């Protein structure tokens, strides 16, 4: 099955790619959106003083 990759997805914040699978007729059989990035704010914010979080979580997205 033919695969068309859009990597990276551009003009947005963050990282993403799209994989499009084409069937034998050249029609789209299925499409997958993937996020190939993880930083782990959910975990590493634990244990940080609450008054410091405004200066940490602002770095989730700076756009």
């Amino acid at each position, binding site marked *: *099955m033919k*695969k068309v990759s*859009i*990597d*990276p997805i*551009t*003009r*947005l*914040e*963050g*990282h993403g790619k799209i*994989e499009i*699978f084409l069937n034998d007729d050249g029609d789209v*059989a*299925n499409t*997958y959106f*993937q996020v*190939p*990035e*993880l*930083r*782990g704010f*959910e*975990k*590493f914010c*634990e*244990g*940080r*003083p609450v*008054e*410091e979080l405004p*200066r*940490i979580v602002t*770095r*989730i*997205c*700076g*756009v």
Partner: protein
Amino acid sequence: MAKLKLALYWAGACGGCDVAVLDINEKILDVANLADIVFWPIALDFKYHHVEAMKDKAIDVCLFNGAIRSSEQEHLAKLLRAKSKVLVSFGSCACFGGIPALANLTTRAEIMERVYVEAPSNDNPGKTLPQTKTQVAEGELTLPELFESVLTLAQVVPVEYFVPGCPPTVDLILKVVNALATNSLPPVGAVIASNKTLCDECERKKEEKKITKIYRTHEIIPKPDKCLLEQGLLCMGPATRGGCGTLCVKVNIPCRGCFGPPAGVLDQGAKLVSAVASIYQTNGDEDIARMVNEVADPAGTFYRFGLSDSMLKKKRLQRR
């Protein structure tokens, strides 16, 4: 002069560095006169295969922001290194690990568990975790491997220059643009910022540095003209490179060290611990124990932006 070929990339980052480049406002037109941008995911639709197809050293300057924590980011670092004559470590994440490097206080397994299993917004009863390879009906899907540790750019590939800051300020970015325009780049290895510490550049009144209590920022309203450290607030100023324009301390907020260690300082956190220890007034072990307890989050405060680049980090420099 032929136009320069300029690339900008983000690895483990928030996009703030890219937006900081746009914050130079109308001066972006000078950049457009000076350089053709050949890769910039946030703003232009070039793909990875366009970069792969370039000849080696086809890019004159690459401003690379973001930390390295996955095989994809490592690949892009190596790819852009090969394709670039000058590779600039741009912003705190690329230079020191930045905020994403706080993940070095935990493990990859703990992050995966929290993000994909425990987090209350999840609906994942099968406890499915991302895999580097997944078979689907139509074929195979791949994801990059997440490293155990967050690395700086220079820990992965050689780098010509460092531009610190979270994000680098407009003044610094213009300094880089002007250096490119006039072909007057500093010696390789230079940090494009101030050679003084933040303390040296801070206009607050500094008197006698003696403190008897460390306060958290919500516990006091600091006087606007007196040294924050002298008022008992942990300020990274003595252990941080200047060049930011003292933005945070100007608005009564203590520095958290995003410009990294000053010249000659190996470990930013150790430098500040040493500074605090030398000004805290104690009469024995009890006071010392109290002082230690008053620091709410030592690792996350002293190494807020610099864990990857610190001595502490080196204990965990493994990728799997």
